[in-house]
């Protein structure tokens, strides 16, 4: 069995750390894992994605349209941009926030509208990660909120997640991050039950 997860967002939103958490959890649970990311230019506020694959045997670190089992989008436009990557029966978790790209901010291009409705129709579950992160006590933990949401429905023990998070985030922020994770997980459980 091969599982493919795509994390996408805007450079600087913490997709790389989030992907690292997931990869470490899968590894800690004894699976093979591969993670592929892009550094450099795009990290300066550009459109970014990171792919994590895990399973018993795996080869390529990258993925293709139609092959992603779980997409976690940190931003609405980035979710829309990659919607065709998600399998028709795949899961989409979306932070319902828009970060306007520069061409929109400057008025060169119109801001896209109705994204949430389209994504909802495609079966997305919305997790307001920024809000939950503030609630958890650290506005910077939105990426961990989203990992909490992703964890609901993945076959990994809660304890493994908590251990990996505690070992990976700055010591002073462990509690806020564990809170953030819990809030995200609960929100996804609620969201999926509502469907």
């Amino acid at each position: 069995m091969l599982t493919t997860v795509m994390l996408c967002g805007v450079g600087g939103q913490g997709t790389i750390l989030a992907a690292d958490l997931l990869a470490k959890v899968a590894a800690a649970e004894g699976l093979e894992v591969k993670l592929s990311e892009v550094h450099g230019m795009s990290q300066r506020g550009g459109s970014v994605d990171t792919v994590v694959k895990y399973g018993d045997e795996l080869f390529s670190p990258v993925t293709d349209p139609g092959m992603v089992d779980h997409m976690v989008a940190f931003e609405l436009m980035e979710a829309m941009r990659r919607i065709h990557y998600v399998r028709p029966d795949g899961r989409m978790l979306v932070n319902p926030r828009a970060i306007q790209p520069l061409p929109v901010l400057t008025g060169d291009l119109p801001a896209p509208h109705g994204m949430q409705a389209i994504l909802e129709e495609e079966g997305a579950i919305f997790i307001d990660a920024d809000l939950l992160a503030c609630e958890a006590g650290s506005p910077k933990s939105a990426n961990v909120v989203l990992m909490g949401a992703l964890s609901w429905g993945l076959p990994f023990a809660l304890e493994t997640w908590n251990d990996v998070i505690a070992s990976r985030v700055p010591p002073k922020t462990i509690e806020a991050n564990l809170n953030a994770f819990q809030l995200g997980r609960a929100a996804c459980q609620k969201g999926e039950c509502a469907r």
Partner: protein
Amino acid sequence: MGRILLSGNESVAQGAWEAGAVVGVGYPGTPSTETLAHFARLPDVYAEWASNEKVALEVAAGVSLAGGRVLVAMKHVGLNVASDPLLTLAYTGVRGGLVILVADDPGMHSSQNEQDSHNYAAFARVPMLDPCDSAEAMAFTREAFGLSERFDVPVLVRSTVRVSHAKSLVEPGSRAVPDDQPAYKTNPAKWVMMPAMAKQRRLDLDRRIDELTAFSRETTLNRAEYRDTSLGVVCSGVTYLHVREALPDASVLKLGLSFPVSPDLISEFAEKVDRLVVVEEADGFLGRTLLAMGFSLDSVPLPTSGELTPGSIRQAFGFEPPPLREADTSMPPRPPLMCPGCPHRPVFNALRKLRAVVTGDIGCYTLGALRPLAAMDSCVCMGASISMAHGAELAGGMGDRPIVAVIGDSTFAHTGVNGLISSVYNAGTSTVAILDNRITAMTGHQGNPVNGITLQKRPSHEVDLIALCKALGIERVRVVDPHDLEAAEDALREEVTHEEMSVIIFKAPCALLVKDKGDPYAVDEEACTKCGLCIKLGCPAIGKNEQTSKAYIDTAVCVGCGQCVQVCRYGAIVHSGPACDLGGV
């Protein structure tokens, strides 16, 4: 130690450490940078950033001459800069093992071009190893040191973004420092490459390549995997992994040593399969190699540029794509941008107002070419800005528009200073702006000679740019704080009118280095006249309200740098309350 998750770059560093490399040297460049950064953190090694890749390889040549094993790391275009020593080091060969990690960027995620470094292996005639993942990156690099000494030649380890920046599980081993070399003896026939000696070493290189070709036949670096023999694929590097996923039944010849390749190795594989196909990214190097050997290849319509994926390979072999959701192509693009508070921004704002023709260079400031700043006319390779400005002036200038060269601190130390020496020597009259943001920002904040921060935090000192320029013979040199918009504009305006060489050093730390953020600003809607001047700064914190056309500031993004306050003529940008207001979207 058990298995840990490491990137390809980290694994190359680990492999070099295990092989007993004592020195690591390189110049940052995506996707190679973490290799040396990781090596520098390992015990009992010395590591340094050189000012450029040519220097790095020459330092490594010195380590090798003195008998030490040395790792060099750079991106593909870095090897262009280092190609001069490389092509002759192939002749001299090595004493201590010399291994060069060269990281290619097919698809140009973070580069100015796409080159296949295999060509350098063939050009310089040095062996190239092609790992496909982290485990191989570690094992191949370890082996590369032994090969370098055994065959008396520098060895290239080639990676690509999907090796360098992919992480997978590896089992690190322990360090085995090789025995000391026999005592050093001066050996001009091997190391002094003047014609008489070079002619001999040229012949000797042929012999070494012949031996390596024979070795390519027997080494386990290369591996033939026989499955269904109706299709045989030849590939190397990460492409092997894509092929395994795309065509699980195909037989595969995986070339871990992609140069030189023994024709016998290919024959043996070719004879056992019905259809022989080469699958490779971007350049066609392996395909040309096999065709030149006389093999007949079946071709499939693979993309001729960019990266491959399992899906693109399946498509080339005629498989149907999986069921797909409809793609949405209506989203606005999201190009990278200068951070809020970036000290580069005011310089480009001023250059735009001056209608300057800007010969640019490579770094975060290249983003000044994008709208709305749109104030850069060229970007070719590191260091080109200053020489191109000189050339443009030699051609008689650019009409009534002033010409300004813009270059970052790290890029200036890399190869910009060479252009500056040449321009001054030839009585050039250019205006040069050195954007000294105290760091090599684009590649993730490395030290460089201008800020004097070294890789392993050893004490050093900063280049005194003013004294340097003066010593070259430039009279008009000044330092300006770019956050003072008026001063920045005035300095440029004044210097472009002078008929002599001038250098303006715009000195202010990268916004990401500034820990104390100011309170965010907000727009006073009453006072805003929709003039759009603040929007033209291209700050990601400032937007134009679609309904009212007035400006707004996202307080969660604003770092309070105050640049926009200075462009607003109506006093409409004012201090606001604290950040983290997460109201509606």
